[in-house]
């Protein structure tokens, strides 16, 4: 049973426009959410996170929104740049301190077109 779902395997966006990546979860015990970016043959790189006590967190071009009642979060990238082309993973943690590991979605491949 998939607890973290990224329903779009790929997304194509024009350079300069907004990219919106979506993630849904089913486990109501999750209280901390993260987004990672991954290039081929490299490890994932941490992008941004949000605690369940917030509904928005912003860091430069990246903003994460959390809707707890809908069990939905999204990552907005604006403006999109060619270097943003990568696979993006949504992840969630149920234990304070993250000591039990993260549950990841299957990823969305973002392609930024010139």
């Amino acid at each position: 049973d998939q607890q973290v779902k990224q329903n779009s395997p790929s997304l194509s966006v024009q350079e300069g426009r907004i990219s919106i990546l979506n993630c849904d979860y089913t486990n109501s015990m999750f209280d901390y959410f993260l987004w990672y970016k991954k290039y081929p043959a490299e490890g994932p790189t941490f992008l941004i996170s949000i605690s369940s006590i917030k509904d928005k967190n912003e860091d430069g071009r990246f903003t994460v929104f959390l809707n707890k009642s809908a069990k939905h979060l999204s990552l907005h990238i604006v403006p999109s740049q060619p270097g943003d082309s990568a696979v993006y993973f949504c992840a969630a943690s149920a234990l304070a301190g993250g000591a039990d590991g993260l549950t990841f979605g299957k990823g969305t491949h973002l392609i930024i077109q010139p």
Partner: protein
Amino acid sequence: DVKVTQSSRYLVKRTGEKVFLECVQDMDHENMFWYRQDPGLGLRLIYFSYDVKMKEKGDIPEGYSVSREKKERFSLILESASTNQTSMYLCASSIQETQYFGPGTRLLVL
């Protein structure tokens, strides 16, 4: 800057061989993790450790074991490698919820 290093970027092994994947972090983190990443499946947790000599099974521990003799080092062991263990192996460490990953080891089992 957090640094997580993995002993090999690419590895080719034969079926039945014992395989050791090493991971070292330099940030004095308590928690360390091993994941594997396969196309279309995302990252799946194999084992994790929250202290020296402590280990916990993740979602897919079968066919693997781990060792954590020192805080900075976490080893993943494939006791008898099989072709279905061909994958990208990723090590991570964390002190809170945010995990920091190494570059990964791409393992091919023939």
